[in-house]
């Protein structure tokens, strides 16, 4: 197997929670040596966030933390202490990337701002991830995943017209997406640093990443410029096109969009060629009463089949469709199993658990699990003694002083 693409890349990871750790996880999984710095005592707040293995809220059993920190080495360090700051500066000499997600202004107060660190390492790529960025009137505002999506994303268009707008899926997909964007930007900057010999500083705002996202937001912003129209929530059940949208099945739900040129696939799926004569084109379909008449045939058909059967019959006939898969369906889906997407990872405290795997695969650029997420302070000795040359006695003193 080829060497991992990022096996020569070293990262100092001063991030916590979700976006920052997801950014560095993407690097670690493709080979980077990521040194994750946590606060002594409590560690990354993600250790206190669920889901927990067997619902036991133990700092080494957070599924979220375990997922976000694979392949990283973990140390504890108190960045408020002078020794802590000095040790960061020592580590910065030898890394390619530093990622931090403190509230804006904190890194300057710690004396670990880019201007200072750049002098130590001119090729350093430093990525700062924050809710609103390092500048601008909202710089110091607090946010949550919901708030970032509401401000940046296309939330106003999700949901029913008479009800409240809705967020994306349960969990924090918007924070993952922001961390993913930070990884993309950091990778682009690293490539530039490598080919041009000049480092870079990135101001990554999660709000701005959402506002520039292709998931409808950019199109809608352009549509407003073109047509002066804002986006609204639409009850999609009111559409006159059919079949279009989410439909029930015997054991759940599935979704189909077989309109226009896809329409013949539906008659094939239902084995009812007469439908094509009855409604030959979209103009016939949008006539009053047509949809109701079709639904009277179609909905009972849906209820006679499981969501899996509906999708398989639809796909066989060439219709655009898919199930509303639950997490259980996803894990059982032969496709993702066959592709080896799921990855079983062994961890000293929780043992073997299945995790989501590689977002993309290449033989010449393997994705690999070399180690599970670190226990709190697991690599203190390895890093501080072997790399920075501290003695074990000095580690004891640093521990007593609350530095590590």
């Amino acid at each position: 197997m080829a060497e991992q693409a990022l096996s020569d890349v070293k990262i100092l990871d001063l991030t916590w929670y979700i976006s920052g750790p997801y950014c560095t996880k993407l690097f670690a999984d493709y080979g980077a040596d990521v040194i994750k710095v946590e606060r002594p005592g409590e560690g990354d707040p993600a250790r206190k966030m669920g889901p927990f293995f067997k619902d036991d809220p133990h700092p080494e059993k957070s599924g979220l933390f375990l997922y976000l920190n694979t392949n990283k080495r973990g140390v504890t360090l108190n960045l408020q202490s002078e020794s802590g700051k000095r040790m960061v500066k020592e580590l910065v000499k030898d890394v390619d990337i530093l990622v931090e997600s403190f509230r804006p202004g904190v890194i300057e107060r710690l004396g670990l701002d880019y201007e200072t660190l750049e002098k130590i390492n001119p090729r350093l790529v430093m990525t700062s991830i924050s809710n609103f960025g390092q500048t601008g009137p909202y710089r110091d505002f607090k946010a949550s995943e919901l708030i970032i999506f509401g401000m940046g994303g296309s939330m106003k268009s999700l949901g029913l017209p008479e009800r409240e707008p809705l967020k994306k899926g349960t969990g924090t997909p918007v924070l993952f997406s922001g961390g993913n964007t930070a990884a993309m930007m950091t990778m682009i900057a690293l490539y530039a640093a490598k080919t041009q010999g000049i480092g870079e500083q990135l101001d990554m705002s999660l709000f701005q990443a959402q506002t520039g996202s292709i998931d409808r937001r950019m199109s809608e912003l352009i549509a407003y410029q073109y047509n002066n129209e804002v986006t609204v929530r639409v009850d999609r059940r009111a559409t006159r096109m059919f079949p279009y949208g989410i439909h029930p099945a015997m054991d759940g739900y599935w979704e189909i969009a077989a309109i226009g040129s896809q329409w013949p696939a539906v008659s094939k799926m239902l084995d009812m060629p007469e439908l094509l004569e009855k409604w030959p084109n979209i103009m016939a379909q949008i006539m009053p009463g047509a949809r109701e008449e079709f639904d009277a045939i179609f909905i009972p058909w849906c209820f006679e089949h499981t969501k899996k059967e509906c999708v398989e019959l639809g796909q066989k006939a060439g219709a655009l469709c898919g199930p509303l898969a639950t997490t259980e369906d996803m894990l059982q889906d032969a496709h993702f199993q066959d592709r080896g997407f799921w990855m079983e990872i062994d961890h000293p405290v929780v043992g073997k658990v299945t995790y989501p795997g590689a977002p993309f695969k290449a033989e010449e650029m393997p994705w690999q699990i070399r180690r599970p997420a670190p226990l709190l302070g697991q690599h203190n000795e390895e890093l501080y003694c072997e790399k920075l040359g501290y003695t074990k006695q000095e580690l004891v003193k640093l521990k007593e002083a609350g530095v590590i």
Partner: protein
Amino acid sequence: MAKLPLEGIRVIEWCPIWAGPYAGMNLADWGAEVIRVENRYHFPVYTRGVMLKTPEFLAMQTAGYAAFKKPGYKEETAHNCFVIFNAHARNKLSCTMKLQDPKGIEMFKRLIKVSDVFLESNAPRVKESMGLTWDAVKEINPRLIMLSMPGFGGTGPHKDYRALGAHQEGFGGHTYLRGYVDEDPTTTTTIYHTDEAGGINGALAVTMALYQRSKTGKGMYIDMAQVESSMCHLAQAIMDYTMNGRITESMGNRDYHGAIQGCYRCRDVGGKWLPPAPLMGIPEEIWVVDSWVNITITNDQEWEGFCRALGNPDWARDEKFSDHLSRLKNHDELDKHIEEWTRQHDANEVMYILQKEGVPAGPVMDEQDAYSDPHLRARGFFEQLTHADAGTHLYPGLMCRMSKRPNSLRLPPVRLGEHNEYVYKKILAVSDEEYAELEKEGHIGTDFAPEAIGGGM
């Protein structure tokens, strides 16, 4: 001042709709020369419109993310004025090739020979039928990086499944995890998170591969399933299933990690107009007046701040809201109190009042709100571009800035075949006579051929 990171990298983009083109956009934004290869004989439905020469009455019914530019609508230029396309097409070049014709494939292969990256997101059968598989293209250019990023990836039983973004979301579990807790899932609106995740990961994968190539000198094939790259964003739900066997359901707007959280209605606004679009389910014109704010209260400290901001109302002192666990238990009732207060204020007002007390809050911004947002303006997010068919407008800009590599949008959304001359003559060194011939044979042009295939409505 340093060059843009990807200057000197040439990318061929052969991609429909969104995820692939979004990956291309991210590469183009940071300096790559991204050339879209399009085919005048294949009308890409949803990519450049809803059908070949969409009639005006239908175009006027489009809305939101799938709208055409309506003022001055012309059937002939509609494919250059479709917002799904114009959202990703800035900073790119476009050329046309008749790919059903061996000469078109030959031109395509000549372009592959002098490119660094071949980005494609078609169903696998498309590249197979055209002979543009990895096995074929690696022979032409051993330094080539090929990223194939169809919905389901290049292998596996669903490899050839037909799906739009909506259906990919379904396979990847995201649709099931959304929606109102107390409504039927048939009401759930479509999102395109697989396009977002796929596009970001596509650009990440390509740049990582360029980095690897700078060490090994070798190109590579990257296999990405948009659905998989997006599933990685749902780790909490997935890990709860694999660790505890629990199936996560939609929680509406509630926080997975136990904060008090919701979207609350604010004072109505003046009204923004939306015309009817019956095909989309908008039967009559709408005056949009609703306005909303999101609030998250994570801990006791934020709760205290929230109470202060509201002037310590009596209801907030109720035993039911005395600690975080009680507040979670009585979330529904708490929501009613919160909304009573937010209804009296503008969404922006709520944000400022609460943020002052250290409580996370922010408006649900529509497009008009975004363009007038002082923060986005202060950060110079929107940029003005002039497009030959659509006119001069502000466009959403770069997601991120670099301090040493200043950057801005360089080119407006690309029109079909706009750079044929550059691509054929400068890059492929085609002579003037040959160019004229290719034009006559239909390879080269700036519109779709009248007989172009590709379904539609």
